[in-house]
């Protein structure tokens, strides 16, 4: 057991667990995108960043891959975290403006403008589909090919692999394919629509006191 402080509250967590898990246990919601409880942590999207305070310094780390340590001091919703997280979501939106998951996240964070040039790639390389295929279906039909700016999710030689069982899990888990934003025209890269029209699910672990969910209210990201 290790003892750590998250948002000023002392807590204990099992050794080997991550900061994200410890925070969720406490009812603190950290927005995540590439994290899925049934899949191995990947740390690709960086949406779940938290501030780790070490003396007078602090660093930003992805909480989904950060193991808990004794005496760790974590801030999940500091100014620095919020600003960086907004920037990250803007960057993700710039490469994938038609994702409802991302648009909802942006609306929840109060982002009203994407400052970057929008280049729709239709994929944010979160690796959810790749991990789902490999870990849950034990198949490994899809994976990443290429590198750098030409990195993309594909099948080998662009043919349907023998391993594929047509389960459709890769599409189901994809934050872009399954939940496409249907807003016709985006203004400054954001639609900002659905969040105001459709009531969102209320937070399942809400303790009614967490600041992490922000002034917009308790919402599931």
């Amino acid at each position, binding site marked *: 057991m290790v003892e750590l402080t998250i948002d000023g509250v002392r807590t204990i967590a099992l050794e080997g667990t991550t900061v994200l898990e410890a925070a969720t246990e406490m009812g603190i919601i950290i927005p995540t995108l590439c994290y899925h409880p049934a899949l191995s942590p990947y740390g690709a999207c960086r949406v779940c960043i938290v501030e780790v305070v070490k003396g007078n310094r602090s660093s930003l780390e992805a909480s989904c891959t950060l193991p808990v340590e004794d005496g760790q001091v974590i801030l999940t919703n500091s100014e620095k975290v919020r600003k960086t997280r907004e920037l990250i979501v803007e960057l993700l939106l710039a490469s994938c403006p038609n994702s409802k998951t991302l648009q909802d996240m942006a609306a929840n964070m109060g982002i009203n403008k994407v400052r970057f040039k929008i280049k729709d790639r239709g994929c944010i390389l979160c690796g959810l589909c790749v991990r789902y295929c*490999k870990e849950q279906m034990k*198949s*490994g*039909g*899809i*994976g*990443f*090919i*290429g*590198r750098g700016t030409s990195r993309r999710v*594909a*099948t*080998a*030689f662009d043919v349907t*692999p023998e*391993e594929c069982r047509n389960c459709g899990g890769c599409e189901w888990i994809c934050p872009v394919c399954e939940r496409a934003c249907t807003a016709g025209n985006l203004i400054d890269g954001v639609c900002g629509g659905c969040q105001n029209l459709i009531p969102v699910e209320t937070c399942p672990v809400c303790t009614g006191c967490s600041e992490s969910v922000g002034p917009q209210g308790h919402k599931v990201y």
Partner: protein
Amino acid sequence: MKSDCEKVAAIVIKYGGNHDSLISILQDIQSEYHFLPEDALRAVASQLDLPLIQVYGVATFFKAFSLKQRGEHMVSVCLGTACHVRRAPAVLDEVKRQLGIEPGETTEDMRFSLETVNCLGACALGPILVVDGKYHGQMSPGKIKKALRKGKRNPEG
């Protein structure tokens, strides 16, 4: 080009059929065939008991691996900063003219493949032309014919 399954199998066995040796195996296959044939990748995947996409992902990740068939002789022109200021673009133009291909292409008789590299780490020798791993330094458009002659069976052609 069909790859010889026995050759591929022998290479995999040489590395003990170990997953960690995937890159070494692919390097050996590449030096055997000058590129990575599709059926060789399939054979490696099945022998190492890896998903094909993992082998394919590694093969597409590294620039050193080629999935396109390449010629017998590999010609690389360095276009790094030091070579560039010493007129490497003129060298490249001359190589392109003599071989009649663009970088990334292979001549029709499957003898030469041309590629550009960003730096070979031998800037003092620039501009550099590499033919089959042999470095030809201080290259000028006039010296190219001689450097390429090795790969041509009939020098006048």
